[in-house]
């Protein structure tokens, strides 16, 4: 199965390694496409707010998702690891990179539920924001959140995103519950004001192109 995936995965599209205090993010490779990774995507607790909740995921659907991102300039699926021992704990999707309008968007999954207890989502988000707002072509980042996902809302509000809009009854959870969909956004000048307040976390951040 892995050799099949290796054959079908396109080359990575955003050749960067982001290294923070605890975490390392780099383009996902076939090595991370394990049964454990598939299990994360198919876990009803982990995927409850992700679009994959509606369909069982297979190695083929994951490869299709990665390749679809890799067909778009500036888009990629980054695997998230603990820096110390390269333990794979999740992924950060660079979903949109629109230089015509100067906007970008991302999605975050912490798959190893034990990693919630280390604040990994917060550090991954800050690493991404530092990276994307250093890009002179990007002046705005937005992110979408299902209304019942309080943990995600708390995180993105804490790092400085503003709630900009509500799409009413826009999402259906696996339970059948109908939820609103929130749009959050942050402008480059806003990040410029907030960034210093995260210097304790970001002071060791490094971005290496390869």
């Amino acid at each position: 199965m892995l050799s099949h995936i290796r054959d079908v995965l396109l080359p990575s599209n955003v050749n960067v390694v982001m290294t923070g205090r605890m975490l390392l993010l780099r383009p996902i490779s076939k090595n991370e496409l394990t049964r454990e990774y598939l299990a994360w995507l198919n876990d009803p607790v982990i995927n409850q707010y992700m679009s994959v909740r509606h369909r069982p995921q297979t190695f083929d659907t994951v490869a299709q998702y990665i390749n679809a991102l890799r067909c778009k300039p500036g888009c990629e699926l980054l695997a998230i690891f603990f820096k110390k021992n390269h333990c794979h704990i999740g992924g950060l999707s660079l979903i949109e990179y629109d230089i015509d309008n100067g906007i970008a968007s991302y999605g975050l999954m912490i798959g190893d539920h034990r990693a919630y207890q280390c604040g990994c989502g917060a550090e991954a988000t800050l690493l991404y924001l530092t990276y994307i707002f250093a890009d002179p072509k990007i002046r705005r980042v937005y992110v979408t959140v299902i209304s019942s996902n309080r943990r995600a809302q708390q995180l993105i509000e804490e790092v400085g995103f503003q709630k900009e809009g509500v799409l009413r009854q826009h999402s259906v959870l696996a339970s059948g519950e109908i939820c609103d969909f929130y749009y959050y956004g942050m402008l480059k000048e806003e990040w410029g004001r907030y960034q210093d307040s995260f210097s304790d976390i970001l002071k060791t951040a490094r971005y290496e192109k390869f």
Partner: protein
Amino acid sequence: MIQRDDIINVIFSAMEDLNTQLPQDKKIDKRLDVQLFGGQGNLTSLSLVRFIVAVEDRMSETFEKSVVLADERALSKEHSPFRSVAALVDYIENLLSENVDA
């Protein structure tokens, strides 16, 4: 030899710094039994990262010991070392006694 009280002092020092950045109702008490993250804990994902960074930095400054608190080893524990101050003290004691560093 680093004593347990030394570790507690380092953690309380990091808590003092963190409290300067937290709203009044989210400040954490300097007590061993105080809950940190999860359950009744006051820390959010972001403030937990700040706290971990602050403790690691103080460990390095005070004892010239480099410790990595958040890694696979922390995840492998049945109970999170970040659930309470006491649990974190125990975890750091174990790390130091096993000479596990960065």
